[in-house]
């Protein structure tokens, strides 16, 4: 055998070893003990309804308890596939999508075995219901530690929901000479598309970066007559207009309360920014009350927002640190005439304060029939409030109907930042239900006013959800990826 033959044999052997380590299809255990409950898998995908185009729902059993896990996935047509390596079940994307394809409108059956102390346990099977409605292909979020004052590396990423591809949209170091970097936030898209989008970059050479029909510019939204530059944005669905809140925001810390942090506004108004003309006009600027979190109806004819309720007379002049728990927001709207760019009178949509609650972050469903918002006992920054839940009410009825979201909300942990997929069949929230500290993206099916069990954004390695020490902040659906590169974005900043 000459040297080249030896090398090729060696190469083939290594290749076979590598391949065999990548593709692992185990057998189901020959004997096992039946357990009368569904497996305690992480993430919990038992009996969830998922989009027909979602990435594989990889999961695992606890490595503290089990030494191995095997799962058999059966399609409605009877096709069966077996997976499992160690305590993880990771399904190849192609196989998963072919199983989803044949299971649309039906369910996948999943049987799980776990090896514990040398014995195999067979858990009760569970189902994964495959909805006929797909989910928007992309999702973007800011990855940030649940930090306090100091921040580190920050990035806005986009994730393909049909696969595990995650790509950076922008980061806070690339356009900044200071080692501290910028604070980048509030990415927002017009109508789920990315040719009109924006985000803020605060700090050195900061500003609001706006993509207008694919063209980039950096603008300063601060005017003499506004409290601050633009903060929380909402793109008008059809026109080149963005409604912003302008805020004077402060952050303080609880010494004992498990909520740990309070973020509140001491002043806040709404403005309208015309992307084409660079004009800023004031929508509302109540001197006493606080308006925040604007969002448009899908037809662009109404602007919804949250507005604080007047404090009791004896509390009005007091330091907000002593009155913050009395600060509550209701949901309002104003009509909007695109031709004249004028807003109508303010109209109360939902009186949360009457029930001793406070709303934030409203989002109207694409068909205009429902509105989602986060609700807590007080304030408008609910991601730090353990009692915060998502609420969905009907629109267009005299008495709004409150939908049952018990399958989506978590008990005792913050659920915040709700949003609708472009087809209105999927709700996404940023939830701290895993541990109370790190926000993760949860998705729920929505159909005819019924909301399905929330499930965690799938990851290629289920452990990724444990080991990523970052929060998923401001998750936003997109129907297409951001095509502008980080480098191109960085060029709008002065060198």
């Amino acid at each position, binding site marked *: 055998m000459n040297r080249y033959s030896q090398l090729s044999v060696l190469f083939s052997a290594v290749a076979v070893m590598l391949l065999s380590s990548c593709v692992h299809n185990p057998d189901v255990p020959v004997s096992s003990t039946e357990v009368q409950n569904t497996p305690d898998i992480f993430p919990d995908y038992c009996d969830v309804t998922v989009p027909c185009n979602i990435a594989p729902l990889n999961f695992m059993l606890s490595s503290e308890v089990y030494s191995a896990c095997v799962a058999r996935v059966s399609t409605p047509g009877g096709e069966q596939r077996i997976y499992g390596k160690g305590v993880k079940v990771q399904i190849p994307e192609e196989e998963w999508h072919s199983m989803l394809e044949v299971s649309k409108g039906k369910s996948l059956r999943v049987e799980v075995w776990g090896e514990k102390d040398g014995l195999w346990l067979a858990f009760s099977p569970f189902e994964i219901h495959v909805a006929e409605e797909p989910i928007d292909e992309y999702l973007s979020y800011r990855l940030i*530690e*649940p*930090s*306090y*004052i*100091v*921040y*580190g*590396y920050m990035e806005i990423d986009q994730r393909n929901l049909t696969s595990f591809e995650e790509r*950076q949209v922008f*980061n806070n*170091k*690339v*356009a900044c000479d*200071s*080692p*501290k970097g910028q604070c980048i936030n509030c990415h927002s898209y017009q109508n789920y598309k990315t040719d009109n989008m924006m985000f803020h970059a605060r700090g050195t050479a900061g500003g609001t970066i706006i993509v207008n029909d694919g063209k980039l510019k950096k603008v300063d939204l601060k005017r003499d007559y506004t409290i601050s530059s633009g903060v929380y944005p909402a793109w008008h669905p059809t026109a080149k207009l963005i409604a912003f809140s302008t805020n004077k925001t402060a952050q*303080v*810390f*609880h*010494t*004992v*309360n*498990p909520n*740990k942090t*309070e973020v509140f506004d001491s002043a806040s108004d709404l403005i309208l920014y015309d992307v084409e003309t660079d004009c800023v006009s004031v929508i509302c600027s109540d001197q006493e009350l606080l308006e925040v979190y604007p969002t448009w109806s899908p037809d662009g004819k109404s602007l919804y927002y949250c507005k604080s309720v007047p404090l009791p007379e004896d509390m009005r002049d007091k330091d907000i*640190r002593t009155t*913050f728990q009395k600060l509550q927001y209701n949901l309002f709207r104003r009509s909007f005439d695109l031709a004249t760019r004028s807003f109508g009178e303010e109209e109360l949509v939902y009186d949360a304060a009457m029930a001793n609650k406070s709303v934030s972050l409203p989002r109207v469903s694409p068909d205009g029939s429902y509105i989602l918002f986060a609700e807590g006992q007080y304030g408008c920054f609910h991601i730090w409030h353990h009692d915060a839940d998502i609420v969905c009410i009907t629109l267009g009825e005299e008495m709004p109907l409150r939908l049952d979201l018990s399958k989506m909300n978590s008990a005792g942990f913050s659920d915040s930042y709700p949003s609708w997929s472009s087809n209105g069949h999927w709700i996404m929230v940023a939830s701290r239900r*895993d*541990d*109370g*500290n*790190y926000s993760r993206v949860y998705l729920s099916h929505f159909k005819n006013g019924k909301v399905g069990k929330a499930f965690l954004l799938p990851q290629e*390695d289920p*452990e*990724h959800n*444990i*080991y*990523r*020490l*970052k929060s998923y902040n401001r998750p936003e659906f997109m129907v297409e990826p951001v095509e502008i*590169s*980080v*480098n191109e974005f*960085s060029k709008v900043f002065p060198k």
Partner: protein
Amino acid sequence: MIQKGKVSSTLLNGSLMAFILFVAYILHFNQEVFYTAYDRSEFLYGSSFFHILFSRPFSLIEYIGSWLTQLFYYPALGSVVLLVIWTFIFFAGINAFKLHGTAKALMMLPVSCLLSSVVDLGYWIYISPVRGYWFSQSIAYLIIMLLLWIARNTPRKCHLLWYVFAFCSYPILGWFAILFVLCLIFIGKPSWRENIGVVLILFAARIWHILLYSNLKFVDVSLGGFPCFETSLDSSTRLTIPFVILGVVTVVLAFCGRYLTKIIVPLACSVACILFTWLFMFNDKTYIDEMRMVRYAEQDNWKEVVEVASKNKRHTASMIMLKNIALMNEGGLLERSFSMGSVAYPIYNPDSVHVDFLEIASPIVCYNYGMFNESIRLNFENAMQSGFSPFHLKSLARCSYACGEDNLLNRYVSHIRHLLFHEDWQPYPISDNLKELVQCYPEELIGVENSDKYIVNNVSMWYESDSKLASEQALYYSMIRCDSGRFWASLRKYVKLHQDASFPKHAQEAYILYMDKSPEEKRMMLPVEESVYVRYQQFWKVLEKRVKSGVKLGDVKEQMHEEWGDTYWYYIIFGTMKY
């Protein structure tokens, strides 16, 4: 001739031996520093950390360096691994540069640079943004020495491939790839074909920036891996000197190392290396003792904290706070605290780097006073800069445990258990003292409180609590604050809750002082030992005499320290830790 050879051989061996002994001594001297290096260096399990590190040039080596830094959990083990790497560098370098006879001693120079680089950080150790620093530079240098050795043994016609290889390896080797090429150039004059390779490496950073690293600033790609000590508040060029010298020395060795065979070379090299390292090393006993106290405090080993504190006479603010906690747990806060010294000295900080109590000990101190939310916040503030090191992960895990946040605890514990030597790690039990103190900490909203001043002020207000422990703390910190109002309030509560206990010595000292100097306050009558009262009178007599004689207050402080440094009165007159 034979005699000359013998002399040079003896000189070479002697110099090498002296240098080896010196290296061993320096490594031994810095064992506590190396433990802190482990404790404050980030290495996280999982693809997230892997990918973050892989997003820039030199990141693979940084990742390996970060992993190896865990070996400093046992400082001796990490030191041995460093020694092994440097030994390989020494021999690989001799072969790479073809050094013969006394010229072999020249390889002490790069080793000395690498040694200096791990012992010169000082307080940068708490805020260093460079991941895997402790091993990465040594590993990369070893790799290029081995590559150079191999390159020199390949036919000359293959050298062009080495230039191309250097270009390709830039994402892995960073600035060492350029150093490798420079060595190749100086070892043998490049042919016109090889010049293409030289040109290629000149533009390596620019090309890789376009190809792989467009999400980074160009400046972060050029000279990838060259340690850059820069934070939002501080920057240091001093710490990069060993690497600049390392680069220069390496090129010089490539250029003319083999000709430097004078008999004096070994001696000159060893002297130069020893002097260079000694001058560059951060050498301060308090710096080491402070690290030791932090380590013991992390392990709830309060006895050893007291032991270290009692042997050091120049406490920093962090050491004083740790000593106070240790005395709270071991007993004797009001009997021994001022005897052990409560006057805080500033840290020895030639770089004027912004490091103090916040970075060194604040999360542990807050935790041990039951201020869990504040401890969590301070851990995060620090981790944003230097990463989620074992120190911060363990501290966060302990806070989660104490707060009953089980899922969060599990997340942190999962990370910690993936660190080397931590498979069975679990947080220490919550002490009874801690359970008692938690009840005393009132809920309120606070701003950014990063200093020991906040803790002192806060604890001094615990006199309304019915906890015996809290009343002792309140009394002590009202004394530290020199606040007669809080002192009397605290004393009343302390006496009420400690009716069978004796009146502690330092409390007596404070009592006499406030009776004498703050007559307008609402006082209470308590019996004090006559010896304490007599000593108090003597203290003032001596003080008045010294001050009247025109001696500066600073000098009076020094003169009176020996006799009166163990009293509260000395603290109140000369203490720098006033709140």
